[in-house]
């Protein structure tokens, strides 16, 4: 197929794959460069121990993130978002807000472009802020790192999900009851699961979908 004949969606997948795998290789070049430039090779036992400690969990969460977030972000948003990262705490809520704002639905052609624009703008702004922050790291450190502000930054996720929760629950009150109740009960009863909470996103999604399906069949959701 020639580039010119490609539809927008075909093009997004074509360029998305090139960018994504290309960037994957570029990212691997960073630790490779450390090895070559400093002639510093990783310690085999430390490397294996470290990787074993995090990889199973991170790869499981990564897989779940792909399955859950790709339909929300759309193709373009995903190819970009899974490179620029910070999905849960930034890109996904940002995209949801943008879609809500203009009344676009994920999965529609409009939702696809709005999702891509939201993720792209958010990525550019984040990279820029962190870049400026790194330039000013000496004067900024005592302010951002002060013990007085620590309680505020410790609570960033509750502060984010509280407001976002209200915005989303308001639109889907009936759909939200079953998953919220079951997740609150789960984490109150088994607190040891909370640190790996992201694993439970698909569980909650299945509960939400099952409850929604039941209510839809009964005609409770118009």
């Amino acid at each position, binding site marked *: 197929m020639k580039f010119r004949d490609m539809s927008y969606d075909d093009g997004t997948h074509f360029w998305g794959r090139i960018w994504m795998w290309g960037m994957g290789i570029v990212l691997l070049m960073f630790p490779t460069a450390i090895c070559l430039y400093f002639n510093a090779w990783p310690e085999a036992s430390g490397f294996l121990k470290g990787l074993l400690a995090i990889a199973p969990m991170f790869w499981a969460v990564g897989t779940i993130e792909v399955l859950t977030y790709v339909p929300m972000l759309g193709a373009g948003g995903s190819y970009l978002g899974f490179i620029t990262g910070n999905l849960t705490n930034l890109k996904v809520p940002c995209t949801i807000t943008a879609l809500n704002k203009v009344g676009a639905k994920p999965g529609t052609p409009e939702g696809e472009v709005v999702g891509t624009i939201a993720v792209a703008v958010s990525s550019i702004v984040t990279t820029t802020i962190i870049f400026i922050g790194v330039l000013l790291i000496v004067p900024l450190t005592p302010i*951002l790192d002060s013990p007085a502000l620590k309680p505020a930054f410790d609570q960033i996720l509750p502060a984010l999900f509280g*407001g976002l929760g209200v915005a989303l629950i308001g*639109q889907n009150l009936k759909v939200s009851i079953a998953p919220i109740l079951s997740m609150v009960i789960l984490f109150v009863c088994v607190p040891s699961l909370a640190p790996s909470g992201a694993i439970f996103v698909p569980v909650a999604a299945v509960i939400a979908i099952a409850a929604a399906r039941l209510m839809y069949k009964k005609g409770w959701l118009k």
Partner: protein
Amino acid sequence: MNHEFSVNSPFLFAAAGVILALVIVQSVFFLVRAWRQAKKLGIDAAKLKSVVKSSAIFTIVPAFSILIGVIALSKKLGVPLPWLRLSVIGALTYETAAAEAAAGAVGTSIGDTATLLTASQFSTIAWVMTLGIMAGVILTPLISRRLLSGVDKLEKRDTRWGEILMSALFMGMISAFLGMIFGKVGEGLTGWIPVFVMFSSMVIMLICAVLIKKFKIKWIEDYALPVSMIGAMALAIPITNAVNAAIG
């Protein structure tokens, strides 16, 4: 090559800078394509600008929290590695855990800022952090097309159910994270701090919603979520202090 190692070596800054420049190029590439396509679809430019504005405003507070993550890790790992890891793919929660696990595996810890990392320890940590978060990079190109066309087929078969399904997916994500906030309530009053903060954020959001709907103050829309977030984070300081005082 065998250059003198430092966690803040100019070489590392340059390497991280080049990769981040590529990330910006990628973002601009996708932004321009989507923008052109939006015009083809006949979406109003004003609507697109409001997407840009709300996304930019929304991003500011979380971006600062990421910057704090960079500062926290930089004490042990230097600036370039956390800067790169938290700007690309990384997320605050993962990178901190990955760095801690990797540091532990080479016999040190992120908190131990008194001893300097050797080049080999640093190289090990960089490899573990990089490989640990590669799942999304490998999987997204492999399965996103099939996943999206599956969702698409479903939505075409029954449009209303397709919409409900997407809402249910959003609610599933939100529920898991809202549930996690309650994960420490068994530890006593301190465990309730995140819950109090979450409710503060909800109340501020509801006030914004009332202002938007009842009083028709439209411009608040863009700021409702950042305001609830900053407001609740600001309230987290007196809440934490009050809880600590109550416990004594």
